[in-house]
């Protein structure tokens, strides 16, 4: 822990006299802006992996790794681009964990990362559009595309016997993309979406939205939002007015703070979040301690994104993105020994000795297609005001 802090502090102070064998990794997330509260857990998540690798002393013959934070602001493409420029050309990072929101991620990828040949692994940009973006093999994500989640969610709902849902999404590329993907999958499978409407995060009042959702009707309410933003407000207001009793919670809504805040009224609601029956998530919880909340959305993905970059470097024996970008798939997928959070030292050893690993991590990483997580989902249900896992898909 102390090491982690030291690392952050040192990088923060922009120590210019870097050691010859000090590798820098950019942690490029929206520390200010609309998802600043999620990032408060994601940033430390990524830094935990970096600190773990650095402390092991086994990385590239004893090189240290430091994290360099930069702020995407989540929304301001111009500021994000500048910050990414700074990371790559001034701080001379060798890889970037980020960006967080799909919009700024696209901007920095096309404007900064591609021209400079820098690898970016995003823990949380889930927009389906990123699957097809031209990236020269430099862009990966430990979060699955929402196109996949829409299908999974549709299956879960239909299997539980709900034929008609109301749907509300947070009005950004994540919410909209997921809502569209879900609505398409669900209607194709014979379900009825009574209303598909957006809500703005961080606004004053959701009475009107809940009124509209209630009037449209439906067996349950799908809330494709954020758990500490409008999503929570919608659920709270729906319960208060008795509009809906049961909610479907996709990844952005899955976190302990939601049942904590709402209490037993949420019992019976269900949903899914990226995850698998690996013990990765639990392992991460023990690593995180008090430093961050490992169950917060995308905290695990952030850890994994940082770990993947470093393991790929180790596998390529190079910190040059052009060399290690091809190794990301190798370390992430089978064959090889499965690696969980906290076992990065072991993984480094295996790679150093020429062995193969299959990084599983906190979010059961399995890269597919253009370098995105295959989308293993943990089906959850709220029981006794707690999130409990009821299955995996």
């Amino acid at each position, binding site marked *: 822990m102390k090491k982690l802090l030291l690392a952050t502090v040192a990088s923060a102070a922009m120590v210019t006299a870097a050691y010859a064998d000090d590798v820098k990794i950019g942690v490029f997330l929206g520390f200010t802006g609309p998802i600043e509260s999620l990032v408060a857990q994601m940033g430390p998540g990524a830094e935990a992996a970096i600190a773990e690798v650095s402390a092991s002393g086994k990385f590239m013959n004893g090189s240290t790794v430091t994290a360099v934070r930069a702020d995407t602001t989540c929304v301001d493409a111009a500021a994000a681009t500048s910050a990414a420029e700074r990371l790559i050309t001034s701080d001379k990072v060798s890889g970037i964990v980020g960006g967080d929101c799909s919009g700024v991620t696209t901007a920095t990828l096309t404007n900064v990362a591609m021209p400079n040949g820098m690898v970016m692994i995003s823990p949380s940009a889930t927009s389906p559009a990123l699957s097809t973006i031209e990236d020269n093999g430099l862009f990966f994500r430990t979060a699955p595309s929402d196109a996949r989640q829409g299908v999974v969610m549709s299956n879960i709902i239909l299997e539980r016997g709900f034929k008609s849902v109301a749907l509300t999404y947070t009005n950004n590329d994540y919410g909209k993309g997921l809502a569209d993907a879900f609505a398409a999958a669900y209607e194709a499978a014979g379900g009825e979406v009574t209303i598909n409407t957006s*809500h703005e995060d961080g*606004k*004053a009042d959701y009475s009107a939205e809940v*009124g509209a959702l209630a009037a449209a009707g439906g067996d349950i309410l799908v809330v494709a939002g954020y758990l500490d933003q409008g999503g929570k407000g919608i659920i709270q207001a729906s319960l208060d007015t*008795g509009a809906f009793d049961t909610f479907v919670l996709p990844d952005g809504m899955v976190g302990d703070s939601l049942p904590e805040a709402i209490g037993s009224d949420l019992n019976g609601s269900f949903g899914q979040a990226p995850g698998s029956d690996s013990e990765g998530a639990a392992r991460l919880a023990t690593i995180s301690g008090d430093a961050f909340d490992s169950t917060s959305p995308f905290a695990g993905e952030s850890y994994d994104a940082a770990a993947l970059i470093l393991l790929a470097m180790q596998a390529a024996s190079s910190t040059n993105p052009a060399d290690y970008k091809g190794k990301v798939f190798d370390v992430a997928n089978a064959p090889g020994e499965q690696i969980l959070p906290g076992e990065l030292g072991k993984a480094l050893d295996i790679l150093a000795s020429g062995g193969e690993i299959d990084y599983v991590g906190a979010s059961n990483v399995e890269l597919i297609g253009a370098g995105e997580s295959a989308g293993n989902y943990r089906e959850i249900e709220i029981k006794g005001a707690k999130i409990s896992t009821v299955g995996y898909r």
Partner: protein
Amino acid sequence: MEDLLNAFLLMSNFVFVPAIAYGSQLALGAVGVTLVYGILRFSNFAHGDTMAFGTMIVILFTWWFQSMGINLGPLPTALLALPFGIIVTAIFLLGSDKLIYRFYREQKAAPVIYLIASVGIMFVLNGVVRFIIGPNDQRFADGERFIVKAREMKQYLGTAEGVSIKVSQGLTVITAIIVVIALFWFLNKTRTGKSMRAFSDNEDLALLSGISPDKVVAVTWILVAILATVAGTLYGLDKSFKPFTYFQLLLPIFASAIVGGLGNPLGAIAGGFVIAFSEIMITYPYKKFVAYVVPGDWKPEGLVQLLATDYKFAVSFIILVLVLLFRPTGIFAGKSV
């Protein structure tokens, strides 16, 4: 008959009750804005963040009380912390007046300069609040949650619809009424209040009649501290506390104040309700309502919604623009200077 009752309950639950609570919150905020405008003569852009600041102090005290096991039974502990929040906020506002606004008063600066200074204060408060309590959602509500629950009401009445009324909604409306009555009593009956109104009507005349402008200004800021802290806390209890939300609240609050007529407290209250009701009623889908009201089993195909909720926030501004077009001084005539 049964259907009509259901229709009424439906509208109450989804339109009237939330609109009254939201309207009260807006009204309290708008009265604060309008008071600054009427007496100090500028649009205070820092008001939303002042609300956030006051609420933050209340939250800190509430946590402290909760940790000591002090509570109010069914009522939220935050009520107990309110006076402390008000005091700290008042100290802050008086300090900011002394450091910043007073200088411009002495310079007899143009109103727009105050406005810009208030933008500066808004930024600083924004930073201070995030600095102290962080950008996250904070919970501080405790006590009972509901006065009436929709489900229980349905069972009791045997109707298809029911009405929920939250403690926080009840509190909001009651507090708003108390605060507004107290404010009007203060402005109309007390000597200080009367001198404030005189000051608001004509600064020079008021000066001639021997009113101390310093006192009027100080009292105004204290009133603003009370209104902002109360409004912010009630809002936080009803929804949640998140610094960013309070900045966003600024827009509907201003719309309320202008629709009512800037500088007119009564107008601000009316404006708050106009904005709240229109936001909710214009975007409400009347599908179910129509189904209840229309005889027989006929049900409308569509949602019977005037405007998608997507444009909810546009509603307040469209009303604002219409008012500006047809009645520029607001529903109740505001100040024209």
